[in-house]
């Protein structure tokens, strides 16, 4: 039984901000006490570097840090040594693009979609420019969904890399990654998945997806900031070139500039990592698994359906993704600039995001470059939705300016 009231007790912010309605979960998520404690334990009881100390708390620290790989391996069904800790999903995608540079040559194609976040576009734009390769976009429907047929039409022999979000960040379009991966692999292309908006919200199994790489961020799944998880198939990570060279990632080097790197995944973790963040991320992943990713997914779907039903009754709004059954709702109040509308909601203690949400070519699909995005998580409630809908019904040009007086 999914008990949201009990779950909310795990989050100290709800007692510190009793009036806050936090619907900006696509941007970042709130932190449960177990994550805060895991981070704070590092500061209070076992502060030390990793892979460098010969003393007891350093050993404890190593055990916790490296043990976190096992937690994430369980979360996404891979091996612990297929998990590298980087700084966020952006860093993960940049590492993958850098690592695949030798596979992309002049005239080759990198296949993306126009609904992608900047972090899954710009690393590829740069690679394409460097290699004289081409960027192509899979055709989507009006709510940014890719059909298997559309993907099949977009795929051809020149495509070397396919990189797509499993769930898009503005419209919540869920892409058929397993089918996409199968088709892409039949052409010998690599399949990269941006899991920033999927892994926190649903059971993601890399074996079922069949992807070669997956990146996601801890802070979008109740974990600390500054931790990204890079999954790659072992045989691909094994020889992949790291973006950063430095401490801990090398085995030995000599004055004649010969360098022997450590094996993956440590070779992707140069310099002192965000140790407390990684340990906190592990606590977050365990917390989500203790609630159950399937339960979280089912509850969020139910919430979203309720939200859509209520919100679509309002005449003053235009909703851009009513047919998607998952993820955030993206909308505008008619004749009100998105930031002005978000300002009105903020005056009612409601947190949403307005603007283009870093998806700066999505407007080519939905025809507007600014929306309000209300994104839910498993700690949100129908009561909050009711309050949100009441506030949303009041949005007008007049009320949005009224907040200044």
């Amino acid at each position: 039984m999914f008990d949201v009231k009990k779950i909310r007790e795990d989050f100290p912010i709800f007692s510190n901000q009793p009036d806050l309605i936090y619907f900006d979960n696509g941007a970042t998520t709130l932190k449960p006490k177990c994550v805060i404690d895991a981070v704070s334990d590092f500061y209070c009881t076992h502060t030390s570097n990793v892979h460098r100390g010969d003393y007891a708390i350093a050993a404890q620290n190593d055990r916790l840090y490296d043990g976190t790989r096992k937690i994430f391996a369980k979360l996404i069904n891979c091996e612990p040594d297929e998990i590298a800790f980087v700084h966020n999903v952006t860093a993960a995608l940049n590492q993958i693009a850098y690592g695949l540079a030798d596979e992309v040559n002049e005239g080759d194609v990198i296949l993306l979609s126009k609904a992608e976040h900047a972090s899954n576009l710009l690393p590829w734009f740069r690679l394409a420019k460097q290699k004289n390769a081409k960027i192509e976009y899979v055709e989507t429907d009006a709510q940014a969904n890719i059909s298997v047929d559309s993907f099949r039409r977009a795929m051809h022999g020149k495509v070397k890399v396919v990189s797509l979000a499993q769930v898009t960040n503005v419209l919540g379009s869920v892409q058929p990654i397993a089918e996409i991966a199968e088709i892409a692999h039949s052409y010998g292309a690599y399949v990269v998945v941006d899991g920033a908006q999927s892994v926190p919200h649903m059971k993601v199994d890399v074996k079922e997806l069949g992807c070669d790489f997956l990146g996601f961020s801890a802070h979008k799944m109740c974990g600390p900031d500054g931790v990204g998880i890079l999954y790659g198939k072992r045989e691909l990570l094994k020889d992949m070139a790291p973006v950063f060279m430095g401490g801990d990632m090398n085995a030995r080097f000599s004055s004649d500039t010969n360098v022997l790197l450590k094996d993956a995944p440590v070779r992707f973790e140069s310099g002192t990592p965000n140790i407390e963040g990684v340990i906190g991320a592990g606590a977050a992943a365990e917390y989500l698994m203790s609630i159950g990713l399937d339960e979280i997914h089912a509850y969020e779907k139910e919430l979203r359906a309720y939200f859509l039903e209520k919100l679509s009754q309002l005449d003053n709004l235009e909703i851009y993704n009513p047919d998607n059954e998952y993820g955030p709702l993206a909308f505008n109040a008619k004749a009100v600039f998105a930031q002005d509308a978000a300002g009105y909601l903020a005056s009612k203690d409601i947190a949403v995001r307005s603007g283009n949400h870093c998806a700066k070519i999505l407007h080519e699909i939905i025809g507007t470059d600014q929306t309000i995005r209300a994104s839910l998580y498993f700690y949100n409630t129908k009561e909050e939705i009711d309050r949100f809908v009441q506030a949303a019904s009041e949005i007008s040009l007049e009320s949005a300016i009224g907040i200044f007086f």
Partner: protein
Amino acid sequence: MANSLLNDPDILRELIMDHYQYPHNHKLVDDDSYASVHMASDSCIDDITVQSKIRNGVIEDIRFDGVACTISTASTSMMTDLLKGKKVEEANEIIGNYFNMIDAKEYDPDLLEEAVAMKNVYKQANRIKCATIGWKAIREMIDESEKDA
């Protein structure tokens, strides 16, 4: 009389709405004698261009266009009304007072006329950049014109 009206929140709200829906001097010109500044604030999608014609220490014309929120649009529209035809020294004094108001410091409301409608924006820290986007553009062009002079 004028001042008492400009203390009435309903009037100030109407003023912002009016300048947003029907912005003044809202059309760019294709004329080399105008200086032009493109302002795209860093964290939102306001994207406006402000043009001005400054000659012999006088702001002869100011124009703007672009996509922006109510506060950006209205504050820029008010700025064009207020500074058009002013000598650069007068304009600088008005601009200084406006930025003081936005920073919640002391200012002379009489100099700002309708732009006092922006007096509460400082309470919403994330909107301060909206209320200053057009004003920064004209300040930049005045500074340039003084360098050239």
